[in-house]
């Protein structure tokens, strides 16, 4: 009997090597001085505060976060779909004269998505002041560009023969384009769209930590004043709402998977978008946001050439870039390596379901909060930044892995186990192996996200480009802000290229594809 090739299976475990240097550094700096605080943090989990004022303001914060996420999600999906279609080669085949436009759109979209939503937020605050549109715009810009990329890649991977055939019959190019494209577009939108919505909630929560309101702000402020009971109230509420939303979305999607005609599914998509948009906007309006008040722009003076040169001279760019890369590598290792490791260490159906629930929780704790908590029992080092960033994304990866395993055929696992292998190795070969290629492909994409997210970490340790950006922003030094943002953008664009190459490699060898 030929067993499944174990190579990529073992590769899913290899990233967890990152734990070795990180744990060494953390243990070296370990001290018990903060243990009582950690204990307080953990014990507060079972006695969250039920103070009426607090619950009220947390509930309001949650509403702000969800309605903002909903609004920016719809807008970014709509823009993303249009830009996505416009940047396919397929679309411009019908108008070959302007096909350079398609390429132009495709490549220029790399810039908006190379910058993290929090960085967009911090920049837009400077121009628009505190305004709910800052949060919406900062989510919409990178998310539309990301959606556009996924949609154009998926569409371009389809066979274009039918389109050519229809074109040759002489029918209207646009209408034939729609008839062929639409049935392919809708399933992508339904799966990718619901994933994006969840990202939007995470994104708005993070923006809140940086002062843009909502549950993120509540979380950060309760932690800042060390009111752990209050912090847990916010965390539990956020967790509950996310689980309920997830269930609701699954329920909606089950409608899609049933056989419904193209026309109906198109109408359903349109009405979901329309409903969500009106719900999001009216909700925000009800929460007393001046949505329709005219925006006040406050223009910033562009830095002069001399200022930019001075900025280059004063910033330790190389050092900042290296730290940023190190944080990314270690955080990715933890994020990608932990879930498969736990799966092998704790096999079985019940642990799997438990892990599935735990991962949702990890995914929700914003990295800046984890940083402070970890700092209570160890000394400040780069490892702390890497660990806290890794933990959140470990939640995302773990959830994905356990989800797809729960939906996967158990036949291989049973066959191997009946052969007399242990539970562990049956898990390794029977459960992990069929997933590993697509898991690694998704991991490559995650590393890309982690690189972008280093922008928001490092404040407490004072490390990396992210911290320097905060420092320069709070000094209102536009030359430095410009240099750092540009460096970040360049770094992530090259990262994206690198990661998408490796992602394609894993996808080519993959049997099931859940990352789309």
């Amino acid at each position: 009997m030929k067993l499944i090739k174990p190579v990529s299976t073992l590769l899913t475990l290899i990233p967890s090597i990152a734990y070795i240097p990180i744990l060494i550094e953390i243990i070296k700096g370990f001290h018990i001085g903060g243990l009582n605080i950690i204990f307080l943090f953990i014990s507060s989990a079972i006695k969250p505060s039920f103070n009426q004022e607090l619950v009220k303001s947390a509930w309001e914060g949650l509403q702000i976060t969800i309605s903002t996420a909903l609004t920016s999600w719809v807008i970014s999906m709509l823009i993303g779909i249009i830009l996505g279609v416009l940047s396919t080669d397929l679309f411009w085949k019908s108008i070959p004269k302007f096909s350079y436009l398609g390429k132009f759109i495709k490549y220029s979209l790399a810039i908006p998505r190379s910058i993290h939503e929090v960085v967009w937020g911090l920049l837009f605050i400077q121009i628009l002041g505190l305004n709910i549109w800052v949060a919406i715009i900062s989510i919409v810009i990178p998310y539309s560009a990301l959606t556009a990329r996924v949609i154009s890649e998926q569409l371009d991977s389809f066979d274009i023969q039918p389109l050519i055939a229809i074109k040759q019959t002489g029918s209207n190019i646009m209408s034939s384009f729609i008839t062929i494209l639409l049935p392919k577009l809708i399933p992508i939108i339904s799966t990718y769209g619901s994933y994006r919505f969840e990202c939007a909630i995470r994104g708005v929560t993070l923006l809140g930590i940086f002062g843009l309101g909502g549950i993120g702000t509540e979380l950060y402020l309760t932690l800042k004043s060390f009111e752990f009971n209050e912090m847990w109230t916010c965390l539990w509420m956020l967790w509950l709402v996310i689980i309920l939303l997830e269930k609701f979305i699954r329920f909606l999607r089950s409608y899609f998977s049933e056989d419904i005609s193209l026309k109906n599914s198109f109408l359903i998509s349109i009405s979901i978008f329309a409903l969500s948009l009106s719900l999001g906007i009216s909700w925000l309006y009800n929460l007393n946001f001046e949505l329709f008040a005219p925006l006040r722009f406050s223009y910033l003076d562009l830095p002069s050439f001399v200022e930019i040169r001075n900025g280059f001279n004063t910033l330790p760019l190389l050092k900042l870039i290296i730290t940023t890369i190190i944080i990314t590598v270690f955080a990715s290792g933890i994020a990608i390596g932990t879930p498969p490791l736990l799966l092998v260490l704790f096999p079985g159906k019940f642990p799997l379901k438990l892990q599935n629930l735990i991962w949702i929780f990890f995914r929700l704790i914003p990295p800046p909060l984890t940083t402070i908590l970890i700092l209570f029992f160890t000394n400040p080092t780069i490892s702390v930044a890497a660990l806290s960033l890794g933990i959140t994304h470990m939640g995302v990866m773990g959830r994905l892995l356990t989800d797809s395993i729960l939906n996967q055929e158990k036949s291989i696992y049973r066959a191997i186990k009946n052969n007399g292998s242990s539970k562990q190795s049956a898990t390794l070969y029977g459960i992990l192996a069929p997933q590993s290629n697509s898991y690694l492909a998704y991991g490559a994409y995650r590393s890309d996200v982690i690189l972008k997210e280093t922008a928001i970490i490092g404040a407490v340790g004072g490390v990396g480009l992210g911290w320097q950006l905060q420092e320069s922003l709070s000094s209102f030094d536009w030359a430095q802000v410009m240099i750092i943002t540009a460096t970040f953008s360049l770094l992530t664009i090259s990262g994206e290229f690198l990661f998408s190459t490796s992602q394609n490699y894993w996808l080519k060898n993959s049997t099931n594809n859940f990352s789309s």
Partner: protein
Amino acid sequence: MYKKHLATKIKKISFSFLSIFNLFTIGSLKADEILRIGAIPDQNPEHLNRLYKILSSELSEQLNVQVRYKPVTNYAAAVTSFRTGNLDLVWFGALTGVQARLQSKGSKVIAQRDIDEKFHSVFIANKKSSIQKINNINDLKTLKNKRFTFGSESSTSGRLMPQYFLNKAGVQLKDFKAGRPGFSGSHDATLMLVQSGSYEAGVLSEEVWKRNLERGRMDPSKVFLIWKTPSYHNYHWLAQGNLDKKFKKGFTKELTNVFLRFNEKSKKQKQILELFSAKKFIISKNENYNKIEKVARKIGKVK
């Protein structure tokens, strides 16, 4: 029949346009009559919300204008909201106040608390570290090669003035362990992180240090004070320069006087003073912050 239908349609459309237009004009009219106040987020939000609810109602009563408190949750956002004109009157720290004033022409420092005239920072250390109490500024040198944390990067008492005194003693940021200091994000976090031992030393506002001492959140067996800085001017109320034009002639003066008149005889005012942990408000002026501006320029927080 058809004509009638069209007529009602046109009527409906014009009504809706009018009402939308109306909505906008109402919005802008109202906006001009409201005094929008804010504060930098240096305390827990519940406290700020309580404090500013009472203050808004008191100011509204005394000045006969609508007052609205807009919570701001990020130091830089407070400065920006002042620059973009979203806020008329803001409770700033010395550094953020200087930054905001330099970015909004004509704005004016009007008042501050009695304790803000002589504000101090305290350097603290963990008992397990080898750091000793010091008497002389030059002894700050003992902090070299130690794990050291500031508070928020925009804080006057948690970063700006301490960094100035450190530099004076010949300690640069790169002299700390790992070649950089930490930035804990808040005074409370600094205290907790030094107390836990993650950082061997740190610096925070004396006001917060004393408050934690009173509330018993500070553990004297783990953390102690090593040095108190000389005094400097800190928090203040900064008002936009156009308030007289926006409301009425002499409005800024009147506003200042309302603050100066706050006393413990009125129940509401007593509450406000307590929440501000002040005995009274005193007059203040832009020039009080010249030294802060100079220090900020030297350190690079003001260009």
